[in-house]
């Protein structure tokens, strides 16, 4: 048979761009490009979903940060935790809004975690991991239905912003423990909260120490190195990785500075402008989360974290009782982690790594 022709094979295994399909010379425009416009129309009609979780001790400015990010009062009049006594147990609060900008509709869900790290005994992070896994479970249950919905509602957490208190020293054991567990289930973006209490030099030193801590404990934060698709991604993401964790300041009040109205915090010694790169790195965080990497966050959640969950769930399904169970993902010790590559699905033309999990 002519090597250019392939007879149909009923159960062909997944074959990414096979080398035998010839590229064709075209003598004029066909109009394939129009499919991009069609995609856009479809996307705009369906709208987008984005689910973000903020984790950190109370008083680190999580709610304010969310308000600043989305330039609106995401939390209703009383943000949980503010003005109320510290919750006795770790709780999760979610709120969903629909925001629109230039015709693009975004269904935004923000989950807060008041009470995290506030108790005396703080090793109970199950509610957070449980919530994340519960969202995966929901999606899985919808996906395996016989009669499926046209569009499965996506409540999975796409990004978890972890607020590190500005101690200036290094990551605390609580931070390390939790980050280790979290990074294997969801995209984590750590930030240095309330960075206005650190000077520039202190900031840089703190940042480097945190980066070192992350490396030592094999905590793979977003953007993960292993998912860089091509050289452009690598360059862009390397720059980001250098600056993570971002030192951020949140503010939802506007002040007059040099005749301009800016978002900032007013103190006796000056006004900290949130969107001024010289003052804090909030713009970097906003750009990462919203303007450039939002779709990427969703894709990695869907293609990697959700698939990982699914594999574990399906492998263990015959052991678990009927109904959604909660899967406990304990971090391995650092030594063990270094010897295992993260369970990933490579996006290139090479095969899924059939590694152990």
């Amino acid at each position, binding site marked *: 048979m002519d090597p250019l022709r392939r007879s149909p094979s009923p159960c062909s295994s997944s074959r990414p761009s096979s080398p035998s399909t010839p590229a064709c010379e075209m003598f004029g425009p066909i109009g394939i490009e129009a499919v991009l416009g069609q995609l856009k129309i479809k*996307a705009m009609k369906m709208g987008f979903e984005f689910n973000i979780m903020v984790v950190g001790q109370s008083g680190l400015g999580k709610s304010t940060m969310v308000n600043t990010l989305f330039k609106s009062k995401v939390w209703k009049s009383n943000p949980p935790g503010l003005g109320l006594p510290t919750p006795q147990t770790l709780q999760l609060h979610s709120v969903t809004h629909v925001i629109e900008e230039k015709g693009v509709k975004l269904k935004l869900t923000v989950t807060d975690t008041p009470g995290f790290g506030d108790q005396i005994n703080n090793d109970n992070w199950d509610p957070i991991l449980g919530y994340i896994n519960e969202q995966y479970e929901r999606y899985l249950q919808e996906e395996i239905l016989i009669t499926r919905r046209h569009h499965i509602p996506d409540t999975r957490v796409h990004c978890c912003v972890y607020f590190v208190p500005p101690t200036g020293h290094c990551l605390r054991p609580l931070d390390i423990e939790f980050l280790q567990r979290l990074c294997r289930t969801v995209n984590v973006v750590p930030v240095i909260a309330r960075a206005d209490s650190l000077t520039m030099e202190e900031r840089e030193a703190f940042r480097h120490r945190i980066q070192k801590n992350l490396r030592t404990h094999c905590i793979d934060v977003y953007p993960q190195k292993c998912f860089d698709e091509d050289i452009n991604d690598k360059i862009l993401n390397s720059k980001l990785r250098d600056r993570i964790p971002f030192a951020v300041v949140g503010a939802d009040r506007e002040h007059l500075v040099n005749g301009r109205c800016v978002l900032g915090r007013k103190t006796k010694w000056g006004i900290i402008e949130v969107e001024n790169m010289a003052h804090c790195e909030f713009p970097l965080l906003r750009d990462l989360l919203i303007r450039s990497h939002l779709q990427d966050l969703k894709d990695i959640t869907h293609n990697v974290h959700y698939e990982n969950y699914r594999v574990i769930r399906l492998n263990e399904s015959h052991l678990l009782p009927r109904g959604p169970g909660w899967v406990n993902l304990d971090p391995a010790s650092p030594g063990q982690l270094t010897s295992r590559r993260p369970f990933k699905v490579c996006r290139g033309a090479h095969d899924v790594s059939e590694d152990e999990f």
Partner: protein
Amino acid sequence: MSFQGWHHQNEELRNLSLSGHVGFDSLPDQLVNKSTSQGFCFNILCVGETGIGKSTLMDTLFNTKFESDPATHNEPGVRLKARSYELQESNVRLKLTIVDTVGFGDQINKDDSYKPIVEYIDAQFEAYLQEELKIKRSLFNYHDTRIHACLYFIAPTGHSLKSLDLVTMKKLDSKVNIIPIIAKADTIAKNELHKFKSKIMSELVSNGVQIYQFPTDEETVAEINATMSVHLPFAVVGSTEEVKIGNKMAKARQYPWGVVQVENENHCDFVKLREMLIRVNMEDLREQTHTRHYELYRRCKLEEMGFKDTDPDSKPFSLQETYEAKRNEFLGELQKKEEEMRQMFVMRVKEKEAELKEAEKELHEKFDLLKRTHQEEKKKVEDKKKELEEEVNNFQKKKAAAQLLQSQAQQSGAQQTKKDKDKKNASFT
């Protein structure tokens, strides 16, 4: 099962007003960039008789020369031939697969003509389903081979649809998006064409054939889709030859009585087909295939396997059952195979044993025979020996007797001679 302290205010989905530019209006661009880097798949199935112009039309549509040899009319049955090509326009990469029905309509008995086509379409759905059901899967990386559009080529008889066409389209309409087209439309006169089109459409309706409906719910495309739908089925002419029209070259077919221009909307509906198929509805065709035809196939297949969704109370993990069932099935098969092999082994051993026994018996018999023969021979030899001995005895006796006689004779002779001698001597004395 809710977690302690988790509480969701999801019921109040309110619109929030933004006090500034957040920046997520770049989302559609982010999405498009991602899709562009991954590339697109588009698969077209061309169903039509041999020689009706399927390959030429594909060449014309995609403005290129796909490698192909024309098929013969001697095919014993219908078979499907799929060819894949990579096309690129600016930064959009399209992986195009064109599936041809070779030998369609050539057989004398066309009862089963539609079967290979349906089987092929189902096979592509099955492959996707298998990938989706895998535990470790890579769906985003998957080369989608499901048919997104089926161009059904109707022969330009001018009368009505052939019964083969009706039967085939009826079998395909729930599995694929059918776009009927009239091929070689330059053989029909304009007034006949109009009547032909109406006849075809009314026949399709009266036979309940569901062809692809161009979507009219999206305002940007509703108008153009509505106007184009009126012209179904599209009467097309394909050509890769170029003819000089005025001062430029255009794709056309040259006849002694005139030139049929492919891209002239007064001459044929080629431009309409290209608009509808590629420029306006390619994404919708893909989506319909995935959300309607594939889901239908999946539902039927899973129900066939015996699974259903029950109400939220009992919440069965039907996928778990699938895996359990598959695992059990697999184990069962394994066991069965083992049994079979064991049986066969036992049987073989028995056979061999029997053979050996036979051989042994034969050998015994031979041995007995030989023994007997040997005995007989021995007896014979003994007899002979006896005989010989007897003879020898007799001979000895005779010899003895003879010797005796001889000796007696000698003696008497000697005596006689002596007597004679004596006599002689006596005489002398």
